[in-house]
């Protein structure tokens, strides 16, 4: 088992390296000169040259990459060309916003998804069952940002129940995250409902459930205590996997709801060719993504003895 985990961690290295190389190459091939974008309108041949040297952009690509890698290994991710702030500090400021957004989204998606899914599986072929399947498809068919705007219109502008946008200032204000959280989590909610429904149906036919029922346990206890617990495992792992991709995929939701998270930070950095920030954010997102996948794999391996550690 330990060997398996070490081997999996070892396998992460090429993925992370691959992502950093890909980002580096991509940013240097995309047209647009970071120096021009940093300097703005006051440019002369001398200021351009100074800035290029100052940022080390006069060095060959390979040198720059190795330098970056060397610094990053020591925990130095450089400074933003535009804000002059340390990239790690900027990430530290923005991550909470995206993190809160994704946590709220996933909490809502899981709670509602599990509820609907369980109901559907217990009352199979009923209205609820059809409703689940249908709503799952509706959920994945809606443009996220459109859903967000509709929610803003209804709950923010017409009913005045929830804030239209923004984080609500310092600290965490739950009411500001409800609409964006629902927007971001809607598609996942529908998928979780679908997933839990099919798992519940499988589990409810298992021997131990039949035994439990045969022992005379009430239907409610059987469903919630025995069946649900088992059906939840694949859903929670799926939610874990989704967590990573939602961190990076929240950009449209962040834009609509004016949340200063890492999605918008990345988008702005790309359009300003702020290389250190782009590098920092992609590396962070990739790290979250691969680590969560690793955790999921390991927990699978621990839970499911059929998986071989090769």
């Amino acid at each position, binding site marked *: 088992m330990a060997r398996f985990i070490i081997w999996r961690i070892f396998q992460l290295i090429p993925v992370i390296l691959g992502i950093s190389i890909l980002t580096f190459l991509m940013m240097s091939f995309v047209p647009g000169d970071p120096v021009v*974008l940093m300097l703005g309108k006051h440019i002369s041949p001398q200021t351009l040259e*100074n800035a290029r040297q*100052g940022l080390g952009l006069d060095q060959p690509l390979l040198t720059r990459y190795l330098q970056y890698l060397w610094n990053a290994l020591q925990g130095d991710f450089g400074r933003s060309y535009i804000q002059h702030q340390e990239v790690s500090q900027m990430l530290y400021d923005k991550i909470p916003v995206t993190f809160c957004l994704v946590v709220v989204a996933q909490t809502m998606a899981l709670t509602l998804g599990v509820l609907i899914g369980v109901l559907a599986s217990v009352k199979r072929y009923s209205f609820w069952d059809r409703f689940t399947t249908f709503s799952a498809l509706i959920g994945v068919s809606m443009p996220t940002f459109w859903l967000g705007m509709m929610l803003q219109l209804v709950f923010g502008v017409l009913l005045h*129940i929830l*804030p239209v946008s923004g984080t609500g200032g310092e600290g965490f204000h739950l009411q500001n995250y409800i609409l964006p959280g629902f927007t971001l989590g809607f598609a996942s909610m529908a998928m979780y409902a679908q997933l839990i429904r099919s798992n519940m149906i499988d589990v409810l036919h298992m021997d131990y459930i039949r035994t439990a029922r045969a022992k005379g346990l009430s239907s409610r206890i059987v469903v919630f205590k025995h069946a649900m617990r088992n059906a939840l495992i694949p859903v929670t792992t799926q939610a874990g996997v989704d967590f990573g991709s939602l961190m990076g995929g929240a950009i449209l939701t962040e834009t609509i709801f*004016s949340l200063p998270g890492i999605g918008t930070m990345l988008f702005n950095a790309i359009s300003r060719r702020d290389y250190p920030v782009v590098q920092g954010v992609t590396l962070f997102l990739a790290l979250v993504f691969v680590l969560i996948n690793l955790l999921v794999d390991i927990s699978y391996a621990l839970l499911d003895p059929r998986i071989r550690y090769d």
Partner: protein
Amino acid sequence: MLNSKRYPSLVIAIIVSAALILTGCGLTTEPTKNTTLSASIPVDGGLFRFGMISSPTALDPAFLVEVNGIEIAKELYDGLIRYDPNTLEVKPAIAEKWDYSADKKVLTFHIRKDVKFHDGTGVNAQDILDVWNRLAAKATVSPVAFPLEPIVGFAEVNSGAAQTISGLKKIDDYTIEVTLKEKNAAFLTSLGHPTVSIYKLEAAKKAGQDFGTPASTPETIVGTGAFKFVKWNSDQDITIEKFKDYYGTKAHVDQVVYRIFKDESTALNEFRAGTLDYVDLLPPGQSQAIIQEFPDQTIKTITFTNEFIGFNLSKAPFKDNVYLRKAIAYAIDPQSVVDSILSGLSTVSNGPLPITMPGYDKDLICPSFDQTKAKEYLAKAGYPEGKGLAPIQYAYNFNQTNQIIAEAFQSQLKEVGIPTELKSMEWGSYINAVQQGDTQMFRLAWGADYPDPDNSLRVLYTKSQWGMNNNTFYSNPQVETLMTQGLEENDTLKRMAIYKTIQEKLVEDQPAIWTFNTTYLRLFGKNVHDLTISALDQKDMRTVWLSK
């Protein structure tokens, strides 16, 4: 938690805007004031809550590249001179007076003896020299060292060959002598830009690369302005407070907090909730509704920013074809865009200078919307009714407003027979393509940094800036000579006559069509008085006061 009781005005606003939409957008209400001048006597004290849209990128004077940084920095740091907040005339600040040598190339500044840094220590000539030498230094990599460029020895410092600017001399502790390479009538005015303003270099050095970032502290940002730095919460707010030992007229308010918003709607909602005294930008397309919702509480400012559609004169079809350029100038109707898309909140430009800029010629005759003339010129250009004209590429940097305006112009050009093809690009690749001369027709804007016509014209229309700021690749030897003359002429009347001729020449050659003069609508609270906003788009925090 928001609820409708606390937001009755929002309900009204929505009803009003809904009504506006149902009746079309023809309603135009003029904002009521240019300043919030008040006859009553100013009251001291209070906290001014300033709603700012998007965060400043830096408060280090050497990196003031955008408006929000300049907005706050000009309160923290004073320069040798300052602009009158209403008229933008040059007024003494740290320098109490100055005089020119006979050949107008040497400028002597006499420094006030009572100027104090925010830590209480006095300011002397050496402090100023140190700060300016740092701004010019190669290692600083400042994007805004431009005001010092005309000084002898600047280039040597900027290229790393020298440590101190040779044209900058300390005569005694309170006298500085500045030697210019050429006569330069705009130099003095340019010193009002906060990039050359004065702060305590020793303190800044303690912060190292963190100087002027959100990691700043009152110990590192030690300025000379009427306000001193308190704190900067990244992406949330920046607080400054009244400096009690300020040498000039002291501020009325005790503190100003610049609250940073990502979008205009959130800021507007906060204002409605009563948590802001002022909102810097309002949601696009809602200006008429806002003017009606808050009568007497808006200020309209026509800024020094001029938007234009540039023609790439280095290649076909615009190269050597002034008639085609004229045809396009007559074919588009910026007024219709202002009326519908911009809901009245912009000003149609008349020529290369912003309307508010000194030297602007109000009698200048520019081509304006006239389809008959457009067709005439199109025929003269060799494309009668557009025959033989391949679609012209019209490029713009992507944002919704630019895109919709481009679509509007495209349809107006089509009406006279000029085919166009839209090309939307994101800013980074766009500016690259424009500078490389890869576009045919492109949209750009230029905002002047200080109130002098030279700053709006020279970089855009002279050869030295080809591929940098002059992306039409325009060059006219006559205009180049006039530009130099304009800069060297110290007699204001004669100088403005030169700029009048330049404007006429530019309109004749039509390297660009000047479309809109950027105009903003600002919202302030009922208890806000004497808030002045200059054409430089700066809001003066020293004059503003709050009634109880």
